[in-house]
């Protein structure tokens, strides 16, 4: 799964630490998501969508491999 967290963060001029605080997670979680190493829960995805004021579908994108069982 791809995400545009890093881009959105840049647009809103937010540091990883600031986003982490708003989203109520640790900085390492923000970092791991941006690096594609961690897929967030639905609750965290929705929090990010509220913080960035965009829809979840704009923030996350499925990839081919996400359909592989």
């Amino acid at each position: 799964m791809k995400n545009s967290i890093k881009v959105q963060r840049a647009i809103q001029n937010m540091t990883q630490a600031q986003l982490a605080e708003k989203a109520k997670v640790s900085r390492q979680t923000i970092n791991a998501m941006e690096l594609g190493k961690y897929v967030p829960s639905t609750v965290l995805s929705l929090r990010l969508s509220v913080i960035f004021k965009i829809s979840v579908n704009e923030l996350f994108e499925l990839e081919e491999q996400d359909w592989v069982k």
Partner: protein
Amino acid sequence: METNYLLSSKFKRIGLIILIPSLILGLYTLFTDWEPAFFDANVLGIFIEDLSGNNRFIGTVENNILNEILGILVILGGIMVAFSKEKDEDELIAKIRLESLVWAMYLNYGILLLAFLLLYDFSFYWAMVFNMYTMLFFFIIRFNIKIWRLRKSVSYEEQY
């Protein structure tokens, strides 16, 4: 997300204070058979089978209770260290916690399987004694290494 099955983060330190001395003392008593007479006591027991082959459902047994006390402290301290919340506990840490727990279980039973195949009599008994505690230790070690690496990787990352 709120997890209700973990202890508050302050228990991690309390757990370490209990675990470290009782673990050192426990290993010492195990290897040296140290049983000071002060700890000899008559204690309540169930399903008692004594050396002469008499079975009792319930009764008192004479026993040196030092190893019982240390065993209990190691388990309680170990559980506090293992299952206290991290200060920055969140869903990624919860995932690492779960992975580490499964990994520790595989390793612990893997060792027990090897012990079944290779160890007999008293050697097997000792493997079983250690196996009771190693699950917690494997978990604590693996979980903390993973968390430490995670935090280290972030401190190298750029802020913006």
